């Protein structure tokens, strides 16, 4: 029993996590003929709360309640894993990444997200504007424009051998590389790191 608990509280390797995430695809199909995708939850929230007569938000969102239950579950799962199964040691981050981030001004590694960026104090500063407001906007706008996110395109779409999903996934990665290597140094300087 102790061994099991020790194993669970450790960070899980990719070959455990990846297959478990992949199994969500058949699980949702068998549970109720549902295709895996998470960014649609954002659209359902728009449809439920602020449809504003926009055709894009006029559909039977109640039929998609399962998707909102699923993302609520993800938040609860996040809470359970952090409150009861947390890794007692600090996270191991690649040496090279630590050096790169230190050069950008990120010097604290005290959790899953850097507290130097992700704190309420930063909300009304340039950091908050870029990392929460602009970042979140691009995630929401981009996934909807692309018709899906990493779950809908990269996992569900590629599992089902859909070439449009391959195109989307390539551009997800390309956007990430451009931000990380070309834009981030300027942004970090601009927001005051």
């Amino acid at each position: 029993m102790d061994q099991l608990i020790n194993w669970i509280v450790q960070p899980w390797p990719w070959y455990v996590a990846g297959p478990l995430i992949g199994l969500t695809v058949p699980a949702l199909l068998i549970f109720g003929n549902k295709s895996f995708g998470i960014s649609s939850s954002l659209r359902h929230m728009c449809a439920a709360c602020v449809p504003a007569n926009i055709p894009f938000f006029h559909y039977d969102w109640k039929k998609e309640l399962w998707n909102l239950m699923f993302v609520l579950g993800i938040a609860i799962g996040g809470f359970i894993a952090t409150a009861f199964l947390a890794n007692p040691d600090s996270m191991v981050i690649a040496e090279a990444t630590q050096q790169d981030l230190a050069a950008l001004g990120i010097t604290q590694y005290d959790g899953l997200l850097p507290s130097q960026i992700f704190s309420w104090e930063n909300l009304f500063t340039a950091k908050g504007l870029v990392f929460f407001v602009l970042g979140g906007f691009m995630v929401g706008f981009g996934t909807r424009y692309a018709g899906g996110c990493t779950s809908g395109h990269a996992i569900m779409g590629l599992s089902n051998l859909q070439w449009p999903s391959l195109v989307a996934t390539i551009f997800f990665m390309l956007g990430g590389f451009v931000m990380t290597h070309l834009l981030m140094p300027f942004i970090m300087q601009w927001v005051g790191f």
Partner: protein
Amino acid sequence: MNLIKKKNISAAPCDAPNAQHTAENFSSLLKYLILGVLFGIVFVKAEIISWYRIQEMFRLQSFHMYGVIGSAILTGMISLQLIKRLSIRSMQGEKIVLKDKEFRKGQIYGGFIFGLGWAITGACPGPLYAQIGSGYTVVLVTLLSAVAGTWVYGRWSHRLPN
């Protein structure tokens, strides 16, 4: 108003289509909540909701994220092949429906914009929820902003190249 409604109910509602015919009540919806809980636990325990892991991935300094995404796709692919070849049905006895994705220019432009956001927030939509649950409550702002981004797309999508 009526016309708008009619036109769009027939349109595919989302990237995660729900092909089930049988109606679902609250207790039937609970299974998606439980699946979400398990999913959220995996997200946190494998640290894929971590901003640092996303940085490692885009800097090509760790195999972890590539391993997670790659093995998830492989597992999904094998599962879908089994479902197709064995004609496995859903729990309600319905034939499992897999819709083909259509190519649109949005997958290029939108995909790129999402990638930019992914690298600075350190999260795709799924991890956003897990980050909030993990106690990073300020990510609620990111989530609200993502909802706003979705709304803006819906409002002006007809003017965008697609």
